[in-house]
Every structure is written in structure tokens, then in C-alpha cells.
């Protein structure tokens, strides 16, 4: 009786352990079938991603993607039956961006995939589900769907270069909207804080004290982009200024409030370095709400794209 139950236990353990590998090889089998059907010669990485080159710019070999680069890309996403799920190409607008290597892209397989590419390349990737949409709870893409994504890298930049470009865009916006003209846009000119690149303009003068740490502050605000896309608005939003518990506000807003008196209304323009920085890039974008609902990404990722300059129109009430 004892020997038998021991053998039974051992065989159960072996079965349980081997099941993990079975899952992966099952996917490998499906992927291999697809690749041979399409006559594609692909390479497999150690993490299970299959990749192959679709086109490279042989004459004009661009920079290779390095770790922590900001990558600009276009994509086409389909399943292994050839059905197109989503795509974003040159005709749809400016390329999408994400920062490599800081867990700021979904599906996570793209973080690793993009390191294999250079500017100008178009590669195809087949993602296993654990690097794909496994954690997604959505009607549109199944969690056990093996997907093929074709990426085209159009540019690679350092993050500092991106921030510099944002500051230039803000300066351009100030010029275009005549924000420095106090007769048409009262009451004060735009002040640029050199260290942080925060731009501050008083619209309505305030009275009273400046904000101090520990003060209970109430503000009305509207948050929008340089293209006048409104992201959020609220009235009587109350918090304790300068408290790190539970969490701080957007750093640009916190810095700007230090300059504001009670009853003052001001415009705060800031590059994303004072805002949501690299945020996160969700491919395809329409699943972001499902991911946020499941607590896989924070809510702000749904509204605010990576490297977006922000404008706060803030009125400090008390």
C-alpha cells in the first residue's frame, strides 16, 4: 500500500511539472505550422518570440535601437489566421512612441522585440501569449491568442532630445497664441523656470499667501494638450499640498502651485518631464480601458499618450 501510493505521488508530480512545458510546446507547434504555411524563415529568441525581417533599408542603415531609447514606430497587428486586428500606419498620422526598457509598453513582448531592430526596418514578430495578451480581459482579443505584429521603426531618440523638442513646441505655442501679449492675454507674461522648464503665466491676480506645505488647498483645473485636446477637468478638487501621503500631484502642477496665491488663476505649461513622462503605449489603443479596469495599467494611460506636453488652467480657490 505504501509503495503504491509513493509511486502514484511521484508520477503525479512528474505530470504536473511536465504540464508547464507542454503549454509552451503547444504554442510552438501552432507557430511552426503557421510559419511553414506562409513559407517564412523565422528565428526564435530565448523567451519564445519568433522574428523575421520583412524589409530593411540596406543602403541607409539607421541607428540600432538601444536600451532606454524613445522608439517611434508604426504597426500592423493580426492573428495567425490572417485576420487583421488593428493597424496604425504612416497614413494615420505621426508615429507612436514608447520608451524601451522601462515597462512602458503593452504587450510586454514589444519591449524585447524592438531591440532587435534598427531605424527603417520592418520586422514581423510572433508573440507567445505570456509575452502577449495573456492578462487581457477583453471581448476583442482573446487572452490565449497568439498574435503576429509587424513593426516599422521610423525613428529613435534619446529621452533628453524628446524633452528638448517639447520645450520648443511649448515656446511655439506661446508665440502662436500671443500669450506674452498682456493686452490681449492678461495679466502677466509667461515666465520660464529654467531648471525644470515649467512655464507660468498669471491670468487673474490673486491675494493672500502663497501655498505652503501642509496647507489644505482647493483648486479648479482644466488639463489639456498643446493641440487643445481636453484630458481632465474638475472643480473644488481638494488635497493637502506638499504631503507625500498618499501620493504627490503631477510635479509640474505642484511646482506651479508654489508660485500661486489664493484666488489666483494661472496657466501652467510643462513638458512631459514634469507631467506623465513616458506614460505607456498600448497596442492596440482601444484595449487600454480594459487593462485599466483590471489594474494592469494606471488610469491616466488611457487619456494621456507618452511624451505629451500639458497645459493646466488652474484657479486656486483657498
Amino acid at each position, binding site marked *: 500500500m505504501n509503495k503504491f501510493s509513493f509511486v502514484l505521488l511521484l508520477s503525479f508530480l512528474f505530470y504536473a511539472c511536465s504540464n508547464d512545458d507542454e503549454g509552451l510546446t503547444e504554442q510552438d507547434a501552432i507557430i511552426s505550422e503557421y510559419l511553414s504555411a506562409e513559407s517564412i524563415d523565422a528565428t526564435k529568441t530565448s523567451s519564445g518570440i519568433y522574428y523575421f525581417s520583412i524589409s530593411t533599408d540596406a543602403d541607409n542603415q539607421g541607428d540600432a535601437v538601444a536600451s532606454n531609447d524613445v522608439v517611434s514606430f508604426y504597426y500592423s497587428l493580426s492573428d495567425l489566421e490572417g485576420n487583421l486586428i488593428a493597424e496604425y500606419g504612416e497614413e494615420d498620422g505621426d508615429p507612436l512612441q514608447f520608451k524601451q526598457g*522601462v*515597462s*512602458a*509598453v*503593452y504587450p*510586454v513582448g514589444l519591449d524585447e522585440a524592438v531591440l532587435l531592430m534598427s531605424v527603417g526596418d520592418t520586422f514581423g514578430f510572433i508573440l507567445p501569449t505570456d509575452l502577449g495578451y495573456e*492578462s487581457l480581459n477583453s471581448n476583442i482579443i482573446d487572452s490565449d491568442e497568439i498574435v503576429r505584429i509587424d513593426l516599422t521603426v521610423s525613428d529613435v531618440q534619446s529621452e533628453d532630445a524628446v524633452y528638448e523638442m517639447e520645450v520648443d513646441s511649448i515656446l511655439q505655442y506661446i508665440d502662436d497664441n500671443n500669450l506674452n501679449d498682456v493686452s490681449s492675454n492678461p495679466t502677466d507674461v509667461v515666465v520660464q523656470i529654467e531648471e525644470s522648464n515649467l512655464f507660468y503665466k498669471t491670468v487673474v491676480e490673486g491675494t493672500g499667501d502663497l501655498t505652503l506645505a501642509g496647507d*489644505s488647498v482647493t483648486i479648479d*483645473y482644466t*488639463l489639456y494638450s498643446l493641440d487643445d485636446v481636453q*484630458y*481632465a477637468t474638475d472643480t473644488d*478638487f*481638494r*488635497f*493637502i499640498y506638499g504631503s507625500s501621503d*498618499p*501620493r*504627490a*500631484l*503631477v*510635479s509640474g*502642477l505642484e511646482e506651479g502651485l508654489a508660485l500661486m496665491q489664493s484666488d489666483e488663476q494661472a496657466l501652467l505649461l510643462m513638458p512631459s518631464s514634469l*507631467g*506623465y*513622462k513616458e*506614460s*505607456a503605449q498600448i497596442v492596440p489603443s482601444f484595449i487600454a480601458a480594459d487593462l485599466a*479596469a*483590471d*489594474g*494592469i*495599467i*494606471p*488610469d*491616466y*494611460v488611457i*487619456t*494621456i499618450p507618452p511624451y505629451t506636453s500639458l497645459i*493646466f488652467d488652474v484657479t486656486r480657490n483657498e
Partner: protein
Amino acid sequence: MLGGFSRSFGQDIYEKYDIYRSPFRVFINKFSFTLTTGYAQTTYSHDLSGVYFFQNAGGQYVFSNQSDIDQTEVVAYGNWLNDPSIGLEFPFGFIESTYDTPYDYLPNPVFNPALADAPVLIDTDETPLSFRGASRGIPVNLSMHFNFKNFRIGGNFMYERHYIRELQPSVLESSIRSYIPNFSATNYIRYGGLLGYKFYEFWNYDFATEVQVGKIKSGSQFNSGVITRGLYTNVGISIENVWSEYFRLIFKPSFEFKNYTIDIPDVTSIKHRYPTFFMQVGVSINIPEIPRSPMKSDHTQLKHVYTDPQTGKRREVRGQPIWKKQNPKVGQNHRRLWRYKKKNKKKLNPY
């Protein structure tokens, strides 16, 4: 040998022939003593209602949903399972979802564990929220009952070493963390009355149903000042392997219903249900009404009278140990019984 004599008309045989039996033994023989131990699984569950449930990185708290949400100070309590304590006093302004703008960005935002710390505020009257989890324990139970025909009546005492585990939320499992009690182990002590009935016999197996009702006390981890505990009701089937009239092996599955109510000052009362399923094994004995024969070599199978050589006093004794049937019928206590198989294997000619 006077065993097997029919009773004389109108006179007890022990009186007639002056055969001594200890009256204490005769009396105590009617009581069965049972000692069992085993495994207990308790499922704690409670519904939250009439409160706001608030969760942040620091913990989970409740406060009355009649609270003026615009007031500066809110007092919220944690540990509502065993010892409600003030966990948080804060101005309402913080009860916002931290990741809605304009709160700060989060580094490494995809799959970031800090997302689980995002504040959650739920009005439990609008979104029904309850917690539920299974915990385990090791019980040691001592009971005594009086046997009358097939009925049994008595009492029991149980000590349970209890190990508590976390409770899972009923809704929003992706944002609400499990409730983790602030202690890992405690003791439960139960004592009460017992009533049972033996309803079936099969070969040497007896089946009896038992109901126990009594009081339960917990360890100091529970703040008894704010807890009102109800009585427990335990219903079980005792499956008894009868070795002799004095000795039985017990296997007893049983199910226990109980609950307690905990008061949170100025907030609410929460009713906690914690039924337990037991699987116990043990032994049950009756103190034999007659002692073993003082002669060591006396293994007489029938109860018989022994005369003390010095005093001439007669008393009834038995020759068998308590786990063997006294006065066995032909075939009982036979050497070929399976429980002697191991011992008999060593003998050259066992049968």
C-alpha cells in the same frame, strides 16, 4: 464459576452469593469517555453593509456611510475581524483614485505592483462587498456521555489550535486586496452538552448521530469586549468500530454552525459566520465494571468469580484485556482476526 447463571427470582445474584463488585465501577461503567483529534476547517465569511470600504497602500478600513463626506476628519477602522482599531484619520480629499489626473505619474506603469495600492472607495450599500476565506485547525476533543438504551447524553470539552488564513473579497478581486488578519494563530475552547442516538449497527460497526451545543471562547487575539459570540451547534455522525464492550475506535465527521457579532464604535456591527467542518479520529472507552483477575496467568474468556485466598472474599473479575470481548461467543476473539495478522506472521505455525 458462576458465570452464566440465570438470575434467581426476586434476588440479585450478586447479593445472593455475596459476590463483590465495586459500586463505583458499576456506576461509572455506564458512561463512555471519548478522546478524539483530527482536522478542522473553518470558513469565515461576513458581509459589509452600511459602511464605506476604503483601501490604500497602508491597509483596508471601514467607516460609516452616513459620514459627511465633505467633513475634514474621518475616522476609519481596520481589523474588523477580531479587534477593530482606528487605522486612519484623514480629510476626505484623499479618497480619490490616485491615478486619475492630475496625480503624479507612475514609473514602470505596466503591471506595476503599486497599482494594487491604488485607493479604492466603495459604498457597501451600493456595491455589495463581502469577504470569505478558509482556515484550519487541530482539535482535541474530550467527551463523556451516559448510555441509556441507544441514547446517549453528556457533555464535551474541546481545545482547538486554530490557524487563520486570509479572506478574499467577493467583488473587484483585481483591485481589492485580500483581507489579512492581524494574527496568524489562536485557540478556541468549546464546552457544552451532547445528545445522541445510535441508529444503526452493522457487524462490529456502530453508527450514532450526535448533536453538541455549547459555548465557545477564543484566544486573546479577539477583543472580547466588542464581540458577542453565539453558541455553537455541532452535528455529526460517530462511526464506531467496536472491539469490545469497553473499547471502540471512533471516526467522526461533523459540521458545526456558529457566528459572532463585532461592534465597531460609531460605525456598525458586523456579523461573522464561521462554520467548521471536522474530521476526527479517536478512541472511546467505558471503564470496565469489573477488574482484571489478580492472577496474571488467568486469561479466562468468561467473566468469573475470584475468591481471595486470604480473606475468602468473592468478587467478579474478567480474564480479558478491555479491548477484547468479555464472554465472547464462538468465533469472537478468534486468533485469525485481521488485527492479529501482523503478530501472527512472526510465528512459525500461526494457526
